[in-house]
């Protein structure tokens, strides 16, 4: 009997350990590439979960404001996405964000969604020779959370209700447009 309890305890611990590993795996599973400006930033223009779910709607809404009304200071901008997420190689040249393994492509190929933005839009930030101010190296090393996904040791600042409300609100907005 005693050995069975021991076995159960072991099984639970193993399960717990596996879950922990899984959770850690999720933390490390960010598409943000090292060597991009985003890798040195703590968060995107909105919480990561929100951006992941809604970025297409946000961009679609704001593109009309930009093209039709000339509003260029929108909260969401494809040019800004590229600015932050384009990775630079050791020579300082930007890699296209839709190249294999890069920020946009890695998720889009995983979920099998065509990425058509870059048929027309620039895939690299302006100043492709590496003369722009995108931070590489230096500060990127300190934040091992790899940019958008915050690390485990930080406390959760958004409550569940806040998050739900935020999500519901943005969802309604995107439908409304």
């Amino acid at each position: 009997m005693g050995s069975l309890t021991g076995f159960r305890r072991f099984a639970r611990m193993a399960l717990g350990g596996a879950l922990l590993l899984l959770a850690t795996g999720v933390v490390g599973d960010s598409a943000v590439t090292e060597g991009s400006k985003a890798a040195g930033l703590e968060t995107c223009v909105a919480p990561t979960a929100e951006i992941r779910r809604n970025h297409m709607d946000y961009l679609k809404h704001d593109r009309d404001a930009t093209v039709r009304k000339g509003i260029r200071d929108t909260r969401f901008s494809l040019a800004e996405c590229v600015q932050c997420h384009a990775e630079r190689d050791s020579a300082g040249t930007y890699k296209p964000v839709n190249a294999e393994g890069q920020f946009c492509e890695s998720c889009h190929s995983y979920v099998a969604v065509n990425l058509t933005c870059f048929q027309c839009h620039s895939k690299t930030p302006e100043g492709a020779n590496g003369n722009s101010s995108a931070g590489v190296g230096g500060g990127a090393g300190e934040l091992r959370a790899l940019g958008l996904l915050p690390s485990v040791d930080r406390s959760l600042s958004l409550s569940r209700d806040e998050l739900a409300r935020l999500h519901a609100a943005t969802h309604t907005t995107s439908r409304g447009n």
Partner: protein
Amino acid sequence: MSHNSDQPDLRRRDFIGKTVLAAGAASIAPGVMLTMANAGSDEGVSSKVRWGMLIDTNKCADGCSACVAACNQENGIDLIERPAGQSDAMWDAQRPQWVRKVKLKDNLTGEITNLPMMCQHCEHPPCVDVCPTGASFKRADGLVLVDRHTCIGCRYCMMACPYKARSFIHQDVASQRTGTPRGKGCVESCTLCVQRLDAGDQTTACQDACNREGHQAILFGDLKNPDSEIARALKAYHSRQIRADLELNTGVRYTNI
């Protein structure tokens, strides 16, 4: 009311979030907060402004194409590569050109006139009239633009334009400039350097190039502001619209033709 089925269950996600999510005001960089606070000005461009151009054909030099080169560079037209195996004639006929140098000769007197020809940014643009999707549109500040997101490439607007100002992109484009997206299957034309205007600049690439060459044939500005240089020049000198008979009220005017 429950969430839509395509939405994630946030309560469940929050459970994982105890270990994964830590986004919040404390960890958001101050710069990002600032951006969020400032973003979303709803007004956009105003119809109190109408951008226009006055071109002095006497000053437009024969053989000079600085405006065309500057336009090509500013708007990424020079990044378009010629498709493999395309003939010279086809390439010249099909490559996009936002501004062209036109040379006129009066057969009676032999007088030669040079002028740059581009989208005339009409008040009543025929291209907008014929567009079946609403992709061709006139912005509040008078710019006639193409929304590539809705352009289906039917090219009705190219047929309708009396100035032959529009181009069609026939092939895939490998690289673009950030301010001027471009892709296969859409129509495009002069935007009066909208990316500059929206950034607060009040000159166009062609005007800058013409001034650099010392010709100063192109004057750009706000037609509705009576104190602007262009409005004063229009008041002082006789200018013409090309094809004024169409009563399109063009934003680009010419003197000495």
